[in-house]
């Protein structure tokens, strides 16, 4: 009967209830939506780095520059063989040779990042799920090079054209080769699209005269969370350093944590307002229903029963609002978790300087949604305690005749 009373009391002033609910819907909706987008952006930023340039663990020359378009070839190393005791946690590994070159096509020229890759192993470490290749991906030096879409646009080059790549060799001399454009790739990752010219490892090593040496060796683990432990157990070859995806994305994730804190503040403000709204609604209900409270007390309700009735009304209001907010926010998050949001236009507008992948998939987390519902409900319940207390303290002898 208590539940029936609470439900019907909520429905007796629908407009007021809906207005109070709206604040909870907004608070919980923004919480779910914000967490979904920030979580998605975090994952997006991690993927942008892991899937295009680092893998989960990256071996590179000690002191290698990590900012700007810099890829020195002075301290190259031979691809290591991973120790047997670490092999079980490794899904795949692949070497790369990165260097700076000048790409020339007719009157157009630009400074590019040349990436030599192992045609057999590279795709096992660096995901190509988002790649759109016009033409073909080169499998050997004879096949030519693959231009990032932005590079091709700047050079006004297309599949089948011939470009000249000019680079400094490992010994410091200038070398240049005329190479066929095997294809143009749009990956969604600015690291490749805007600045890269990719080629088979033998081609890259020919251009730099690297004698089989590489500049990077990337490892993909079965579980990326093992990266730190993996690096601690791996004795990197002399002159190299091993780093993890966590270290490589730390700066980006710091920004995300600031965003998350800002979101939490916003949500706290929204839920604070909704708590005030619910407290006000329940308090008004308590003062409007003085005679009913007196009657219930006369019929045998204890103070605790009255308190429970009003808190139940507040909790139900919070639960309904939180469920609606979670359904709305969660629906949007789930939708974009499935289809993603294409950010390539945004990346294009910023000249490819955003450290993000082209597709943003929001973070769909049922525990987060459930937690938001519980949080909204508890806030509403707490907000209704004071007005419920006011109702429960009414003197029944006075209240029945109010």
């Amino acid at each position, binding site marked *: 009967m208590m539940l029936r009373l609470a439900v019907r009391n909520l429905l007796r002033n629908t407009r007021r209830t809906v207005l109070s609910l709206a604040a909870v819907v907004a608070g919980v909706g923004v919480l779910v939506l914000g967490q979904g987008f920030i979580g998605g952006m975090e994952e997006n930023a991690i993927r942008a780095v892991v899937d295009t340039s680092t893998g989960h663990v990256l071996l590179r020359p000690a002191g290698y520059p990590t900012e700007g378009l810099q890829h020195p070839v002075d301290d190259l190393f031979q691809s290591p063989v991973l120790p047997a005791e670490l092999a079980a946690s490794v899904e795949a590994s692949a070497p790369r040779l990165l260097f700076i070159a000048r790409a020339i096509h007719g009157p157009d020229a630009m400074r590019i990042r040349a990436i030599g890759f192992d045609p057999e192993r590279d795709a096992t470490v660096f995901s190509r799920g988002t790649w759109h290749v016009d033409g073909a991906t080169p499998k050997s030096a004879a096949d030519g090079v693959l231009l990032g879409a932005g590079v091709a646009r700047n050079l006004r080059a297309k599949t089948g054209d011939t470009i000249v790549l000019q680079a400094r060799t490992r010994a410091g001399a200038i070398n240049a080769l005329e190479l066929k454009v095997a294809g143009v790739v749009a990956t969604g990752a600015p690291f490749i699209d805007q600045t890269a010219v990719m080629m088979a490892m033998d081609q890259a090593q020919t251009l730099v005269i690297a004698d089989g040496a590489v500049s990077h060796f990337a490892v993909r683990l079965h579980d990326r969370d093992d990266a730190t432990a993996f690096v601690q157990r791996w004795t990197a070859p002399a002159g190299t350093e091993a780093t993890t995806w966590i270290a490589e994305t730390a700066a980006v994730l710091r920004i995300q944590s600031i965003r998350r804190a800002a979101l939490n503040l916003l949500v706290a403000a929204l839920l604070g307002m909704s708590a005030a709204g619910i407290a006000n609604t329940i308090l008004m209900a308590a003062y409007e229903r003085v005679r009913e409270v007196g009657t219930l007390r*006369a*019929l045998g*309700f204890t103070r605790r029963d009255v308190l429970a009735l009003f808190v139940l009304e507040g909790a139900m209001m919070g639960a309904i609002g939180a469920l609606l907010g979670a359904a709305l926010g969660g629906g949007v998050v789930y939708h974009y978790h499935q289809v993603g949001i294409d950010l390539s236009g945004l990346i294009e507008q910023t000249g490819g300087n955003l450290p993000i992948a082209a597709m943003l998939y929001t973070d769909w987390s049922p525990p987060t949604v459930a937690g938001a519902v519980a949080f909204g409900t508890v806030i509403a319940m707490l907000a209704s305690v004071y007005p419920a207390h006011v109702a429960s303290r009414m003197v029944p002898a006075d209240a029945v005749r109010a």
Partner: protein
Amino acid sequence: MSLVSVVNAVKTYGTGEAAVHALRGVSIEIEPAEFTVISGPSGSGKSTLLNLIGCLDVPDGGTVRIEGRDVNGLDGSSLAALRAARIGFIFQSFNLIPVLTALENVELALQLAGAPAAGRREKCAETLTAVGLGGLLDRRPNQLSGGQQQRVAVARALVKQPALVIADEPTANLDSTSGTAVLDLMRDMNAARGVTFLFSTHDPKVMERARRVVTLTDGQITADEFRT
């Protein structure tokens, strides 16, 4: 043993010069199956006395016993349990719960009295039928006339077969016809079921039907008249 025993009850509201002495040493015994009216002018202490007997309040001095049980020493929960199980209330403004139907209003009282769920609704329906509302079980209070609402209140008070029904000005908000009908109903219940009724009223029609009229003046009993 009297059903109700009030001995030298004192109740004062406020303090100092603003103190209002609502009851000044009232003593009264009420036996089972009585049909008693407490009368007196406004401010004489009628409602205060009913509050004490109905366990809605406790006296500042003196004792109130219901079925031999001293209510002064009871805590809020015990008083609530006593009201739920042994005392029915009928109010001047009917005091039905507006979001519940007639049947649910009656059922709420029976549920709070601790009646098991099995057969509860049937018993409530029978009681409502007995007060002439058999066809209006699913109506909400705002779909009933004043007289009908007061009948629901009577059914709500009687359904749990209380030791005592306290009726505070039960006809004050009813027209003459409805008031007479409700009074006749309560008189019939008193006669047929032996339910004890204790009224406060100014209504001459109620006093005509009473077998005992207790008059309060300025917080003291000034007359106690038994009628045959």
